[in-house]
């Protein structure tokens, strides 16, 4: 196991952070506006979000670089600023953490399907390697490949990210099938855990997709199929639209009430995805202290 990961989990469950995009919207990010370019346009507001998570108790915060791979930046006509956006993303988070939290570099999917011929394996690998390198050079402490829905893409991402020598967390979305326990491409938690372990991921996880209650069984199944630590970041339930804005109905305390079950199921890293906010992280911290 990578020493950083070993060190983090040796003292019990590790609290990660919550959603970033929704927090930026609360600070003026427009509907449909690309969050990552705010690393350049509004670094102080991105920093505020990161600081709020550190203050709430996050031991790990993620950089605002989820969509900053060549493919997605290209769609925003910002591919030429790839290094800059990723570098600034890490710098903003490091400054906000001020030594009190680790900074992990976030990498999301490309949004293109291998199977549909949208993109080739080589293009995918190159895109992930490029972004991981930029994050590593800026001193991110680990690479988090998150919200992956295609296992083949995730495996390529793991192998590309490993070239940095940093620990690699690979986290997938389970939101398909009638029990919402499959990835979009139909893979089970067991298949995902085995394949990503084999690909060399240091930590394996699930994020986004559904509310926290559904994550207990998924966590258990990941846990049973790998010897790697497990990373869990659920949504705050499913959103409903109120006045043109997404409203998530799960409260911080409801969210945290599922924590004991998740820990029992073997989760090592806990945080939130869409709709979760700093007060969710604070609720997790209170719940952990109570244990």
């Amino acid at each position: 196991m990578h020493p950083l990961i070993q060190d983090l989990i040796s003292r019990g469950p590790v609290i990660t952070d919550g959603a970033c995009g929704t927090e930026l919207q609360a600070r003026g990010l427009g509907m449909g506006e690309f969050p990552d370019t705010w690393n350049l346009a509004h670094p102080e507001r991105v920093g505020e979000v990161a600081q709020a998570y550190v203050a709430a108790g996050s031991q790990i915060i993620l950089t605002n670089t989820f969509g900053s791979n060549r493919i997605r930046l290209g769609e925003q006509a910002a591919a030429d600023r790839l290094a800059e956006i990723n570098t600034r993303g890490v710098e903003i988070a490091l400054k906000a953490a001020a030594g009190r939290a680790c900074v992990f570099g976030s990498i999301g999917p490309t949004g293109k399907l291998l199977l549909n011929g949208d993109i080739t394996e080589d293009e995918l690998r190159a895109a992930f390697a490029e972004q991981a390198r930029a994050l590593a050079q800026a001193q991110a402490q680990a690479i988090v490949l998150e919200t992956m829905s295609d296992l083949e893409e995730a495996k390529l991402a793991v192998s590309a990210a490993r070239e940095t020598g940093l620990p690699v967390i690979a986290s997938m979305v389970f939101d398909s099938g009638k029990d919402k326990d499959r990835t979009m491409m139909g893979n089970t938690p067991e298949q995902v855990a085995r394949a990503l372990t084999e690909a060399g991921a240091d930590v394996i996880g699930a994020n986004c997709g559904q509310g926290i209650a559904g994550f207990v069984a998924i966590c258990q199944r990941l846990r049973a199929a790998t010897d790697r630590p497990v990373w869990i970041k659920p949504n705050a339930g499913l959103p409903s639209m109120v006045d043109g804005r997404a409203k998530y109905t799960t409260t911080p305390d409801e969210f945290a009430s599922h924590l004991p079950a998740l820990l029992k199921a073997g989760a090592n890293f806990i945080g939130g995805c869409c709709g979760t906010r700093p007060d969710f992280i604070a609720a997790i911290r209170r719940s952990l202290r109570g244990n």
Partner: protein
Amino acid sequence: MADLKKLYDSVVSGDAKTTQAITRQALAEGVDPLKLVNEHMVPAMDEVGRRFEANEYFVPELLISARAMKAALELIRPLLTARGDKPVGRVAIGTVKGDLHDIGKNLVASLLEGGGFEVIDLGVNVSPEKFIETVNAKQANIIAMSALLTTTMPSMKTTIDALKQAGVREKVKVLIGGAPITQKYAEEIGADGYSENAVGAVALAKKAVASA
């Protein structure tokens, strides 16, 4: 004689090469192209849909079956067009303005083609004006909109409002889908239908043209 049972099987298993070969042979033998579609390929796609609902098939299987169907339709469609048969319906599809996530949209487009629809794929980040132009210029009778993000789904309402403004709302059925979309939202913004997955989208589109 072309083995038409095998045509059904090859669509279900997603074997594009066999699907096309049997179709070619059947057409050469004078089998009615519409019969091939309606009696063998559409039931095959229905079976694919059933397997998807039953968790036996997932996105990869859907895609390869739709691809097999499409390979056969490439041979069949020109024949139908030549004798004046119209497609089941003409769909203008795209992700809404501000949204660049097209996996779901591409999947629905493939399955609609597999279901016998003519699909005009407008790509991503499609403005209301572009949808309106396609309804007017290409006589699309269905608009299918997709959004992955809660931040972009309001563009669906903007588009429907713009269709009304342009006076073309009554000419089309508007169908919507995407991760954050619900039936309730579809009703709120005045869409004609919502499906939570790509298989349901084809059934929905068929229902929409039947009621038009």
